[in-house]
């Protein structure tokens, strides 16, 4: 199964796959996610590993258990995930950008101007105006 790779623990990858589906809206809030055993069978992984991935999302409040029925996406899960990703945006994209800018001697004003310029061209290209 190509969706699972060797670079990281499988349970993290399972949790991320579910998160992606929630962020993209493929799995709506309050709808049921596949069971541990279904994940295990589909991805051909150890059921304990699949359970660990799902439990991680339960701990974070993304999923909740309905006794005797299964796992469901919590209300507000999508907003929560978007918020986390926005927070990660700082560490994953902005921090390296700032580091590199400092290395090259690009000051805050110059960097701001550059970001603004990129944003504008992104916006105009993206919306097809002009």
């Amino acid at each position, binding site marked *: *199964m190509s969706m*699972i*790779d*060797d*670079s*990281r*623990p*499988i*349970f993290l990858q399972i949790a991320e796959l579910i998160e992606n589906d929630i962020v993209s809206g493929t799995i709506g809030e309050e709808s049921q996610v596949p069971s*541990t*055993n279904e994940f*295990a*069978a589909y*991805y*051909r*992984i*150890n*059921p*304990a*590993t699949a359970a*660990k991935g799902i439990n991680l999302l339960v701990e974070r409040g993304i999923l909740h258990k309905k006794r005797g029925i299964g796992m469901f996406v919590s209300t507000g899960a999508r907003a929560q995930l978007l918020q986390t990703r926005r927070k990660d945006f700082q*560490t*994953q994209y902005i921090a*390296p950008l700032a580091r590199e800018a400092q290395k090259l001697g690009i000051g805050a004003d110059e960097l701001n101007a550059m970001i603004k310029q990129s944003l504008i061209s992104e916006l105009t290209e993206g919306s097809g105006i002009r």
Partner: protein
Amino acid sequence: MNDTQAPAIELRNLTKSYKDLNALDDISLSLEPGRIYGLLGRNGAGKTTLMTMLTGQGYPTSGEALIFGANPFEHDQTLARICFIRESQKYPDDFSPLQAFKAAALFFANWDQDLADSLAKDFALPLKRRIKKLSRGQLSAVGVIIGMAARAEITFFDEPYLGLDAVARQIFYDRLVEDFAHHPRTIVLSSHLIDEIANLLEHVVVIDKGRIMLNEDAESLRGSAVAVTGNAEKVEGFINGYEVLHRDSLGSLASVTIKARLTATQQEMAAELGLELSPVPLQQLVVRTTLAAQSREELTESQEALK
């Protein structure tokens, strides 16, 4: 018998010697119940000997091999909890698979006939043909079916796939995951087809020359090493200070496998240096770790010889 606290499998300073050879050399190990374990290692590493001790089919030279805290040797109560499928499992010559299953059903208390029937269908096993007329793959299928349908508390599969083609092996793995999900129990899979079973394993034990080389959760192993490839000089600079598991070079190119989980910053640094980082599959990791440990051992031996 109160054995809820006892590990499913426990080895205490286990040694098994054949004349001058220590097939198992002072091994200690404790495995809890309800998991799928991979017992990995090269041919002749001691895997089969270990399982033979654990299933009461041989006795240690010294130390102990315990199943749920009890010595399995000639201990019926304990033996009833174990199923051991050998690489070349023997059956009475004039038995058919159907008769072999009937015999197994008498011995194993949790035997599931429906599971045996559906597996036999999956493997397209001729149930009434005499076992000695079966192909190598069909013979392996008989063992796999007994091992799974027995639903023993502890099941040992010693390289159970000889002669099974890729499709049949996949059926085995898929059905094993499915059945284990509904009936969790202790399963020990001995195999050298590590890539095929890597994702099924929760815990990995690697033995070599009768000793334990690696005893770790599969999940913590995943991503614990990385291969760094690129300009040899830059690679050497980058990997400085890490434990090196393997080194390959081709002209000015080098590829070095190091034991490390790189941070995002380090990955970025590698990218800036034009180095490529690639994940190391479990099979590679096992091979590299085993070989690295061997060369370390040889080094210490030669150092000791010099003293």
